[in-house]
């Protein structure tokens, strides 16, 4: 449908970013574009004149970059730190511009800007040619699905507007661009400072007969039309009103929807038809990518915020293990095995990185094997999520194929993920209830299965309490199992050491084993130091809320050292165990445990009784 609304939009409004290495003149180029298109009001112009003198690096000329570097730190240091958003219009098109930082340490900010854009201008300095940062930005643009790229060969004045200098750079550029698969990658020789080839063809480079930069921006056809992709609708909010109205509000991610279309809920596979497309301006016959609407279905289907409504014949795979490209954004390096919060669409769950396969090499375009990603690195990772999520490959659908990772403790956004594929073997099989399931197994033995997770320092009393609780339950005819660090580390986990990564893997395996035992209908008592909150959260997320309880077995480190049942603290003091929790390695106490036992203040039998009372309250009768 060539005359679709979305094409009208992309002709009307173009979102682009300017990137490239530091000092290649991005801010100057955008500042000058704003100035030349009459988008800088007089009062700002007067201020620019004052500031150009104050922070003067351009002699008596206006320093256009000062129109953009808005933060005091940026003006003082003369660099761009954060993405600046600018707006201008010409008779042909409206533009939203992201001016992104060039410093390698702010690459993540450049990537952030790129996720909103359908075109990138990559700048190079004509006297320096393609740099590492040019290649990195080109690679990230390609990765993020930007198909139209312009190479602005800036500062041509510094090379005397020399054609040979331009040809050398543009030849190298076309080789790079070809390897990255852009649909267009025009190179333009220009000078942002003196305005050559910026908004009108330059007279000083008669050898160049291509378009000027603004001419190209106004004319270019953008091909990323999300309304032509399969229908995807992430449910953001459920609207209920007094009159019994129930509608699913959200913004159409991709494709289009009409009244009477049938839709499937990606997670459950349930199908229903669209009865109404509601807006305050009246019902619509159809809606398409980018429009915020409310869908009413013809039958009551269980749908909540976070669900994804999809075209039934073109469903995404649902998977809890998947491969994705990951851009690492945080100063703290990634820790494989650690649980991170994951947001995809409007769904939050938790996930860990099970393996890192490679990181991309910027200069060669190749890959190299790594154990983890550092800030600004990009690589292929495998993920395990606490629940199944829709897997639309990002290169096929940017609206649903992207996710972010958030650190559970600092709450910083630490990673940007681009889905590649599901790793679940049976990818086309939707979850189906087996006739013999958890409930059936538990019913046979007549009990409610439960996992009880004891955490605390070595010597705090975890294993002792867990074993006595097990004895009491066993005596009452309950089916139980007690998992602890020792019985796992001798067998299942004997390949693991005590590094942070291995500790996390140990806990992950313990959690999975506990889940299997719970599935088998057992009451599982787990005693693990499990020092990190993030790991405990990951374990908790494996279970339904009423199947899991966390018991914090709490005693001061001094008491634990005095007890020292296994002689570990004595060894640590002699330097034989450098990373013992509480000494060389931290213990992060639970913030809201279901049960908090102070074993330094009460006798063992009281702690056991407290746990048993809690289990009774949780529905276990014995």
């Amino acid at each position, binding site marked *: 449908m060539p005359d679709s*609304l979305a094409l*009208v*939009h992309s002709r*009307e409004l173009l979102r682009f970013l300017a990137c490239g290495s530091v000092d290649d003149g991005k801010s100057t180029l955008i500042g000058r574009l704003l*100035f*030349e*298109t*009459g988008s800088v*009001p*007089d*009062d*700002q*112009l007067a201020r620019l*004149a004052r*500031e150009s*003198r104050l922070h003067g690096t351009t002699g008596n000329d*206006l320093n256009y970059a000062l129109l*953009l570097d*808005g*933060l005091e*730190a940026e003006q003082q240091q003369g660099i761009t*730190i*954060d*993405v600046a*958003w*600018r*707006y201008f*219009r*010409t*008779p042909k*098109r*409206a533009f939203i511009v992201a001016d992104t930082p060039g410093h390698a340490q702010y690459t993540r*900010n450049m*990537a*952030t800007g790129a996720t*909103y854009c359908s075109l990138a201008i990559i700048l190079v300095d004509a006297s320096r040619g393609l740099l590492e940062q040019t290649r990195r930005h080109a690679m990230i643009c390609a990765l993020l699905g930007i198909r139209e790229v312009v190479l602005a060969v800036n500062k041509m004045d510094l090379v005397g507007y020399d054609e040979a200098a331009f040809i050398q750079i543009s030849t190298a550029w076309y080789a790079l661009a070809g390897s990255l698969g852009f649909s267009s990658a025009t190179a333009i020789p220009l000078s942002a400072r003196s305005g050559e080839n910026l908004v009108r063809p330059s007279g000083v480079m008669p050898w160049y007969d291509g378009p000027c930069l603004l001419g190209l921006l106004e004319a270019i056809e953008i091909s990323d039309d999300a309304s032509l992709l399969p229908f995807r609708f992430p449910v*953001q*909010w459920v*609207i*209920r*009103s007094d009159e019994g109205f129930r509608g699913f509000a*959200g*913004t*159409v991610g991709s494709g289009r929807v009409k009244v009477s279309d049938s839709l499937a809920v990606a997670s459950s596979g349930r199908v229903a038809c669209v009865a109404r497309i*509601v*807006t*305050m301006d009246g019902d619509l016959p159809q809606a398409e990518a*980018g429009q*915020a609407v409310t869908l009413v279905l013809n039958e009551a289907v269980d749908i909540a*915020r976070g669900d994804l409504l999809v075209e039934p014949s073109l469903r995404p795979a649902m998977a809890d293990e998947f491969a994705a490209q990951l851009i690492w954004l945080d100063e703290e390096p990634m820790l494989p095995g650690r649980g991170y*919060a994951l*947001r*995809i669409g409007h769904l939050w769950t938790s996930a860990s990185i099970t393996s890192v396969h490679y990181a991309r090499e910027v200069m060669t375009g190749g890959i190299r094997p790594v154990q983890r990603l550092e800030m600004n690195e990009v690589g292929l990772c495998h993920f395990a999520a606490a629940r199944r999520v829709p897997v639309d490959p990002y290169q096929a659908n*940017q609206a649903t194929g*992207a996710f*972010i990772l*958030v650190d559970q403790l600092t*709450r910083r*956004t630490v990673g*940007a993920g681009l889905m590649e594929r599901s790793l679940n073997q049976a990818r086309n099989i939707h979850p189906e209830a087996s006739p013999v399931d958890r409930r059936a197994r538990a019913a046979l033995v007549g009990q409610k299965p439960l996992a009880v997770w004891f955490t605390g320092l070595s010597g705090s009393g975890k294993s002792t309490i867990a074993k006595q609780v097990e004895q009491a339950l066993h005596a009452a005819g309950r089916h139980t199992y007690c998992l602890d660090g020792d019985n796992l580390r001798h067998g299942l986990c004997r390949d693991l050491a005590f590094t942070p990564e291995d500790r996390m893997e140990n806990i992950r395996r313990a959690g999975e084993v506990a889940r299997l035992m719970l599935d088998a209908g057992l009451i599982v008592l787990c005693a693990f130091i499990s020092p990190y909150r993030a790991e405990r959260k990951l374990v908790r997320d494996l279970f339904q809320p009423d199947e899991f309880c966390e018991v914090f077995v709490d005693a001061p480190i001094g008491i634990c050292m005095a007890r020292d049942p296994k002689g570990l603290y004595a060894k640590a003091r002699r330097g034989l165990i450098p990373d013992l929790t509480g000494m060389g390695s931290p213990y992060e106490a639970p913030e809201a445990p279901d049960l908090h036992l102070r074993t330094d203040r009460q006798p063992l039998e009281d702690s056991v009784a407290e746990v048993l009372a809690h289990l009774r309250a949780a529905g276990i009768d014995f």
Partner: protein
Amino acid sequence: MPLVRPPVTWTPPEQVEARPSSRFSRLEGEAIGILREAAAACRRPVLLYSIGKDSSVLLHLARKAFFPGRMPFPLLHIDTGWKFREMIAHRDRIVAELGLELLVHVNVEGRRRGINPFTSGAAVHTQVMKTEALRQALDLHGFDAAIGGARRDEERSRAKERVFSLRGSGHSWNPRDQRPELWGLWNTRLGPGESLRVFPLSNWTEADIWDYVLSEDIPVVPLYLARERPVIRRSGIWIMRDDDRMPLLPDEQPETRSVRFRSLGCWPLTGAIESTATTVQDIIAEMRATRWTERAGRVIDGEGEASMESKKREGYF
């Protein structure tokens, strides 16, 4: 240094005319998505309603976002005691007509101390009656997200603002602590004492706002339209005496001129422009020809080159 105009190959931008539904559906869809996100992800959000044109558009979008349900958050107006009388009347009329829940907060302590724009100065008045008052109101009601109508095209430090902007304890804004925002996958997680400022109109320009007011027929305060009003000239700015609390200087003589306001704040701090634009269409035509920013008439913004940034660090919107 000479101030050189760009050579005139660029006539003032003409509006790209298109069906209103297509022109705005992207900006509108984005803004509605942000409003719904604030409602879904935050414990107790509030919509900051300052009665101006941006607030009016924001309110209109919020009604659309939750239709046919009710807006799941109240409105909050920070009243400095120096708002134009027509603004207060407009506020009360809109709230009554739409049946909305409105909270009005005044910094009572500031009023008791007699803080005012004249003797306290614009900076102190704004700090105490606006910034501190906002912090008080948010703490008082336990709001963890304040939705506001600020736009990135208004001012330089706002050009770098996030859509979901994180404020630390004490509502402080640290530009270096802001989270990257990718693909509109907002990270709304908050720690103890932290809160959010949410800006659904981030990507709207002043022109978009007026075009939208026109196309959706959104009611705005009549002060935006030109009329004969009593004004005095002070520090190069036309000030409208809205009541007699403003002492006249010896050589000041109120005169009647056809003026209007591009941006509305406290009346002693808000400059009027001479204009004959009596309809929204006139305003749009006038705006296309103007060469001045809308906040140029605001007395508070001019103090110090980065004054908006420093105000934001202290908790200003």
